[in-house]
C-alpha cells in the first residue's frame, strides 16, 4: 500500500505488521496526551510535585534525553567539521549514523521542549522567557539554546525528509533539500555552538544554586564546574545512545544497518570521553566534598539519606561510570557484541543517574537543619507524559526508518531480491 513511499532498494515489513506496531506507540502517546490535557486543564496539581520537589520526573527526563540527544550534535560535529577538516575517517564512517543521530536528536529535543511546555505553570505565556529574558539565568540560556537548536535540528532533519521517494518527485523540494544539505556544515557548526552552551547551562542551572550545597559548585568565570561536566558527560553518552538505538533498530528489523566498525568507532569515542569524564567527575566530587560541603557546615553523609542513600554515588560513578568506561576503551571488550552493548547501556544509565541526582536529590536534601527529608514519587500523569515521549520517539524513529533513507549502508548490506535479481541501485542517499 505504502510501497510508493518506501525508499528504493530496501525491504520493509508489510503494513499489516507495521500498523499494530504503530498502534502500540500511539497508545503510549495517547496516555501522554491525556496527561497533558489534565495538566493544562486542571493545573499541575495533577502531578506529585510539590514545593519541595519543584522539579520532578519531567526535569530528570528532560535533562536525560537532552544529554542523550547530544549524539546528534556531536556526531554532526565530528562528521561535518572534524571529519571534513581534520580526521577524514570520521567523515566516512560516521556518515553511516549521522542521519540516525539527527533523527534521535530531533526526537529528544522536540519531546524535551514539549514536556517543558507541560511542566511550566503558565505555558501560554512561556514565551515571556524570551521576551523578558533575564540574561543572568542559566535557564534563560537553556531555553534560548534548545529552542534555537531544535530549529537547527529541524533544518538538519529536513533534507532527510525531503529524500523521501515521493517528496523528491517535486523538484522544488528536491532542490531545496539539496541546497540545505550542501550547507549542512554551517548548521552543524551552529548546532555545536548552541549545544555546547545549553548542555553546559543545564549543568550550570544546578551548579549556581548556592542555596543548595548539594548542587553548588565553584567555577570558572560565570560557569560552575558542572557546566563543563555536563557537556563532557553528554558527549560521552550521546554516541553510546546512538549506538544503542541503532543496535535496537537492528534487532527489531533483523537486519544489519551499519557496519561493525562504525559501532566500534562510536564505542571508542564514547569510551574515551566517558573515561576522561569520570576522572574529572571524581576530582569534582572530591573537591566538592572537601570544599563546598564543609563550608556549608555539612558533612558528606548529610547528603545521602533516606531512599537517596550512598548507593547512588557508588552506582553513578563506580558501577555505571568506571565499568562502562573500561569496557568501551578496551578494544578487546568492545569488540565483543554483548560487552559493547552492556558498556553502552551502562554508560547511558550512568548519565541518567547523574541527571537524576542533580535534579531530584538536590531538592530532597533539607538545607535548614530543622527541615525534614522528603521523598517523591511521580503520579501516573507524570509517567504518562514521560512514557508518551518515549512512544513518540519510537514512533517517529520507526516512521523515519520506514519511509526515509536513514541508513546509507542498509541497501548495500541487505540486497533486495526482486524476481531473483539483486537491486543494487541504492538510491538511498544520493546527496553527499
Amino acid at each position, binding site marked *: 500500500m505504502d510501497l510508493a513511499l518506501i525508499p528504493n532498494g530496501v525491504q520493509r515489513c508489510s503494513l499489516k505488521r507495521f500498523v499494530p506496531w504503530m498502534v502500540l506507540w500511539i497508545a503510549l502517546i495517547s496516555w501522554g496526551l491525556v496527561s497533558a490535557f489534565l495538566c493544562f486543564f486542571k493545573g499541575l496539581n495533577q502531578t506529585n510535585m510539590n*514545593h519541595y520537589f519543584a522539579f520532578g520526573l519531567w526535569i530528570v527526563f528532560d535533562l536525560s534525553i537532552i544529554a542523550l540527544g547530544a549524539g546528534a550534535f556531536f556526531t554532526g560535529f565530528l562528521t561535518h567539521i572534524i571529519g571534513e577538516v581534520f580526521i577524514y575517517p570520521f567523515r566516512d564512517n560516521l556518515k553511516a549514523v549521522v542521519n540516525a543521530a539527527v533523527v534521535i536528536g530531533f526526537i529528544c529535543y522536540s519531546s524535551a521542549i514539549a514536556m517543558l511546555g507541560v511542566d511550566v505553570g503558565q505555558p501560554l505565556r512561556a514565551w515571556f522567557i524570551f521576551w523578558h529574558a533575564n540574561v543572568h539565568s542559566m535557564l534563560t540560556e537553556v531555553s534560548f539554546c534548545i529552542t534555537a537548536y531544535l530549529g537547527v535540528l529541524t533544518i538538519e532533519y529536513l533534507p532527510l525528509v525531503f529524500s523521501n521517494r515521493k517528496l523528491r518527485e517535486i523538484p522544488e523540494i528536491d532542490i531545496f533539500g539539496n541546497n540545505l544539505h550542501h550547507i549542512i556544515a554551517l548548521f552543524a557548526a551552529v548546532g555545536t555552538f548552541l549545544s555546547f552552551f545549553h548542555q553546559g547551562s543545564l549543568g550550570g*542551572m544546578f551548579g549556581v544554586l*548556592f542555596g543548595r*550545597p548539594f548542587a553548588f559548585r565553584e567555577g570558572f568565570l560565570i560557569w560552575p564546574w558542572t557546566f563543563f561536566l555536563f557537556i563532557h558527560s553528554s558527549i560521552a553518552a550521546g554516541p553510546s545512545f546512538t549506538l544503542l538505538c541503532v543496535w535496537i533498530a537492528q534487532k527489531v528489523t533483523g537486519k544489519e544497518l551499519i557496519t561493525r566498525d562504525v559501532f566500534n568507532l562510536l564505542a571508542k569515542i564514547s569510551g574515551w570521553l566517558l573515561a576522561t569524564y569520570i576522572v574529572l567527575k571524581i576530582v569534582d566530587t572530591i573537591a566538592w566534598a572537601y570544599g563546598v560541603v564543609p563550608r556549608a557546615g555539612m558533612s558528606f553523609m548529610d547528603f545521602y539519606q533516606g531512599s537517596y542513600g550512598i548507593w547512588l554515588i557508588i552506582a553513578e560513578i563506580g558501577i555505571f561510570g568506571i565499568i562502562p568506561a573500561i569496557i568501551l576503551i578496551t578494544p578487546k571488550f568492545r569488540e565483543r557484541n554483548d560487552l559493547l552493548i552492556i558498556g553502552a547501556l551502562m554508560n547511558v544509565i550512568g548519565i541518567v543517574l547523574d541527571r537524576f541526582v542533580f535534579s531530584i536529590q538536590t531538592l530532597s536534601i533539607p538545607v535548614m537543619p530543622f527541615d525534614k527529608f522528603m521523598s517523591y514519587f511521580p503520579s501516573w500523569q507524570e509517567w504518562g507524559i514521560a512514557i508518551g515521549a518515549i512512544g513518540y520517539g519510537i514512533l517517529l524513529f520507526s516512521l523515519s526508518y520506514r519511509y526515509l533513507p536513514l541508513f546509507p549502508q542498509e541497501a548495500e548490506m541487505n540486497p533486495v531480491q526482486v524476481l531473483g535479481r539483486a537491486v543494487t541501485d541504492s538510491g538511498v542517499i544520493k546527496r553527499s
Partner: protein
Amino acid sequence: MKKEENSKGNRYGMVIDLDKCTGCGLCTVACASENNISVLYDESDKTRNIAWLQIYTITNGKDFPDTEVVYIPRPCMQCDNPPCVSVCPPTATRKDPNTGIISQIYSRCVGCRYCMAACPYHARSFNWFDPSFPEGMDRYLSPEVSPRMRGVVEKCTFCHHRLMRARSKAYAEGRRELKEDEYIPACAEACPTQAISFGDLNNPEHQVSQLIKSPHAFRLLERLGTEPKVYYLSAKNWVRRMADNYLAGELS
C-alpha cells in the same frame, strides 16, 4: 558570588525574637488575611499549600521533662544576595535597589519553579491549584493585593502595598522619609507579644539596626552567603545552633 548590598536608600529588614514568640500563629493568619492568600481543602499539606509565613517547630531533643519547644516563624528572608532573583528566566522576581525587597510579578511568572529550587528556605509557594476561597469568602479580599492565578510562584513581599500606602501618605504630607512605625508588615503589626520588629537596617536609629547588634542575633543558614535581612534573636544557644549547619565538633 557578587554581593549586592544596597548601602544607600532603605534596606528594610525584620528581627524576630524567638524567646518572645509563642507560636500562636497570629502572624500567619494576619499575613493570609492581609495578602489574599488562598486556602486549600487540605491545608495540612504543607508541601502544597500557600504559606508566605510558615512557622517551624524545633525542640532541644531532650527527654521529658527537660524538653523545650521553640517556634521559628519564617517569612521570605528578603536576602541581600538572593539566590532566587538571578535564576528567574522571565525576570519575574527582582530586588528593589531602593528598599532591598524582593518582588514577585505574578502576571509575568511562567511557573518554572526554578526560584523554588534555588531558595533553601522554602519561602516560595507555587500555586498548584486555582486560587480557592471558600464559597462567599471572596468578599473579604483586599483590593490592595491582587489574587494570584494558578501556575505561578508567590511569596512574602514584606507587605509591599503597605509601603506604597505609607509612601503616598508621606508624599501627600510633603515628606520624603518614612517614620519608623509608618510602614510595618501585617505580621509584625499583629504579633501580640511584639516578637517581630521591622524597620530600615540602613537607618541606625531604627530599632532593628540596634537589635541585630545583639550577641543573640543570628540568621538562618548564614554560611550559604544569602545575606538574609530577616534576623532572629534567641538567648538559647541550642536555638542559635539550630539555625545553621555545623560540623561535628565545630563551636558556634
